[in-house]
């Protein structure tokens, strides 16, 4: 359904939003009509989530620039509650349901029908039942949320949003965890809501779904709008071209890495999903890396890249099958400690959660993984540690007063360098990097790129996972592409193009070579 020219229901004008060192949104304009599904697509980090957080009131006015208009009136939300009152409901990827409560309680959480402060249960359940019925969902409102699958939980989130009488519904990757039949149910509901006049913003990496469901498509890249158009006039290659259409600039010096023998190899690695038995996060993946080679692994969020690395590193013990070979010999790795002993290093994604002890000094963080190598088995030597971490700090250009600065006070780029330093101090032979430049500024990115090239030159084998295509293309000698746990493509430096990789990553093209 296309809506004829009338003032849009929602209009976001010239939205800007900066984080220290990064301009996340740079004058983005976006509008939405009643009864329209408007898809928002772009690479990871293009600014989609930030834009939606501005809309949802997560960032309040002086934190962003530009105007949000609903039916022509400027709104400046003081918080998430106010945005909800204005009819905006956002369903984030991470669901916000209370697992131990029932469906009905979750739907009306904080807004339970009550009299003199006493919850009126029969009314609560009646209203919940009606709401679910309207959505053609056959779920008992008294079921505890934890008994429902992820897909059904997603639908409950939508029911909850509708109970707010939401007029604008934002869906962030709603099908990421859904089975095919659940996707059909979801789409049926979205179609019905469209008929009721609800405007929907649909964020997804799965382009075929975007084309199936949406009326218009807007592509974001590097915090800017690169195009808006009717879905029926565009096709997937056109959208992909807009998503990636950025020059791979000079920040990637072309370095020919001297490659040696194969040092590391995995065969038929599979990882099962702890939440959904039977589902595989990684399905039968095999690859090898040579000394001095940089192997890129591309793919979209949720493609199983991080799980693959975690599995190799022994952090998913108990739900991994397959074989790992180092120097041609099969090894068993059931814990990170064993992985380190075999010469593997792993710069994890999400440095705050998995990489750093934020309360502690740079020194303590840098020496954590290699402490026994640096200090000695039982006693720590503050001298040896200072020497090692100061040297590494200088090598990696970590900007801080001293090695005794608390890691949590550093900027993102410097924190990332500390995590890298931690692994270099274990003297690894194979280094895994998971999104090593996420959320850091361009200067720090370039420094990390230079380090990667330098390390490869010393004969280190490097496996680089990144959502940023230019990064993968600019640094890797070979690129693998994962899509929903499967290996869907392999390219050499000369055959890899952003379009081909994106096609494999979105499942658009199977097994290109």
């Amino acid at each position, binding site marked *: 359904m296309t809506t004829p020219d009338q003032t849009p229901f929602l209009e976001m004008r010239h939205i800007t939003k900066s984080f220290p060192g990064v301009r996340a949104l740079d004058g983005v304009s976006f509008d939405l009509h009643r009864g329209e599904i408007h898809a928002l697509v772009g690479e990871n980090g293009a600014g989609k989530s930030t834009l939606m957080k501005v809309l949802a009131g997560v960032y309040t006015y002086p934190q962003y620039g530009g105007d949000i208009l609903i039916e022509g009136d400027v709104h400046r939300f003081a918080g998430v509650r106010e945005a909800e009152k204005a009819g905006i409901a956002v369903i984030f990827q991470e669901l916000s349901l209370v697992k131990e409560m029932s469906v009905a309680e979750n739907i009306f959480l904080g807004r339970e029908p009550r009299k003199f402060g006493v919850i009126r249960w029969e009314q609560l359940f009646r209203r919940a039942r009606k709401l679910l019925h309207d959505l053609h969902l056959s779920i008992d409102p008294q079921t505890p949320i934890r008994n429902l699958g992820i897909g059904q939980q997603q639908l409950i989130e939508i029911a909850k949003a509708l109970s707010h009488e939401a007029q604008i519904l934002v869906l962030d990757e709603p099908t990421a965890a859904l089975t095919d039949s659940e996707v059909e149910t979801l789409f049926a509901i979205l179609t019905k809501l469209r008929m009721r006049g609800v405007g929907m913003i649909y964020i997804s990496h799965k382009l075929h779904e975007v084309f199936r469901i949406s009326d218009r498509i807007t592509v974001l890249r590097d915090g800017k709008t690169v195009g808006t158009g009717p879905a029926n006039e565009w096709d997937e290659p056109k959208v992909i071209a807009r998503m990636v259409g950025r020059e791979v600039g000079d920040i990637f010096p072309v370095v020919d890495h001297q490659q040696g023998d194969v040092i590391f190899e995995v065969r038929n690695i599979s990882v099962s999903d702890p939440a959904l038995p039977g589902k595989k996060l990684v399905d039968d993946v095999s690859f090898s890396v040579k000394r001095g080679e940089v192997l890129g692994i591309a793919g979209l969020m949720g493609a199983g890249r991080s799980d693959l690395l975690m599995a190799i590193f022994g952090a998913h013990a108990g739900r991994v099958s397959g074989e790992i070979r180092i120097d041609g010999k099969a090894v068993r790795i059931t814990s990170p400690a064993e992985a380190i002993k075999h010469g593997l290093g792993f710069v994890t994604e999400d440095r705050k959660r998995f990489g750093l002890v934020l309360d502690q000094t740079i020194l303590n963080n840098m020496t954590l993984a290699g402490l026994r190598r640096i200090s000695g088995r039982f006693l720590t030597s503050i001298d040896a540690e200072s020497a090692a971490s100061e040297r590494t700090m200088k090598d990696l250009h970590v*900007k801080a007063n001293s090695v005794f600065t608390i890691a949590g006070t550093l900027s993102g780029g410097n924190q990332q360098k500390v995590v890298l330093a931690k692994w270099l101090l274990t003297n690894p032979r194979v280094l895994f990097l998971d999104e090593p430049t996420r959320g850091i500024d361009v200067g720090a990115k370039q420094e990390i790129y230079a380090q990667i090239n330098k390390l490869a030159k010393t004969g280190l084998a490097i496996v680089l996972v990144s959502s940023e295509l230019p990064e993968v293309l600019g640094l890797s000698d070979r690129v693998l592409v994962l899509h929903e746990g499967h290996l869907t493509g392999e390219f050499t430096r000369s055959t890899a193009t952003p379009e081909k990789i994106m096609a494999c990553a979105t499942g658009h093209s199977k097994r290109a070579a």
Partner: protein
Amino acid sequence: MSKSASEPGVGRPPATSDLTPLAETDEITPQTTIGKFKIPTDALRAYTMVFALIAIWIYFHYSTNHIFLEPRNFSNLMRQTAVTGVLAVGMLMVIITGQIDLSVGSVVGLAGGVAAIAQGWLGWGLVPSLASGIAVAVGIGAVQGGLTAYINIPAFIVTLGGLLAWRGVVLGLTRGETIPLRLQSFKSIGQDYVGPTIGWVIAAIAVAAIAWLTISRNRARRRHGLNPTSLGSTAVRIIVPSLVVVGFTYLMNSYEIAPGVRAGIPNPVIIFLAIALAGAFLTQNTTFGRYLYAIGGNPDAARLSGINIRRHILAVFCIMGALAGVAAIIYTARVGSASPDAGQLLELDAIAACVIGGTSLMGGRGTVFGAILGALIMASLDNGMSLKNVEPYMQNIIKGAILVTAVGLDMAGRKRG
């Protein structure tokens, strides 16, 4: 037991960092400005604690007609601190790792009861009796640590169960009786003193050690290109602790038990100081200690850095058990008998000592020095209020209020810092 990702403490909710805007941060150590002085916030916290202790002492000294800091009472105060202090050192390690042990009071009761039964009803000698008490406590630590680390039962639950169960075991074993100590050598552990001469020898060794450590540390700093501390501050770093050692020894030695007979440092205090030193060394100078802080600070990062979280949690509970055993020996020896309700509420004193000393119950933060200061503050309040004949009910109210206030002030300071 599946080897899934459900290691203790790892099952945290997903980080919310994605939803919160990045904070603008300075790349400097947190500092607090007072007048024109800039002091690192951590050091300020330690100084504040010391000043609070001194203020408490001065207040009690004057409000008790100069009894409080008299050698006799001071000696008593130190002896009272010993049991809580020994437990606080163990509790500190447990809490740093992000765990808790609520059972130590009952374990003290049980270990003391076992040792007393061994020397009394079974007629064992001193060493086997002490060993049996400590062995029981270590065994309990291993069981509780094992349940926490390998079966993933939260430490709070395991040790809450322990608090009840072990007390039940003491009552059963002793049949509700108080068992007197038969061995004089046992009693002397809690009641006697090292003579004044030995006291001075220990003090001299301590002063020499302080000087040597400070100077060699300075040399190490220079060797690694760090700025060595100035001559003046080096001197202060040697002189101040040395004065504390000398003053402490002097005060202890000037207590006359009988006319002309000088006491010296009480045995429990010597044991306590030795354990405190060992604890400080273990937490600050060993890989083991470093790993405990890392596990408490961020279990996910620690695990991915190759640290075996389970083994460390088990070890820390065993150490806690051993120290509860030592505390039980001191306690039983001091009282001269093992009663079935011995050690009640000691777990709370130990936790309070840690917390007043700046330890974070979330794990990852705290020092042995702070825990000892906390133990001294708690014991000083007990002792001083008893001297002032404050009614027991009032004592509890005041101690509770001070605990909450101390942590409240600390949190307020942290937020600002």
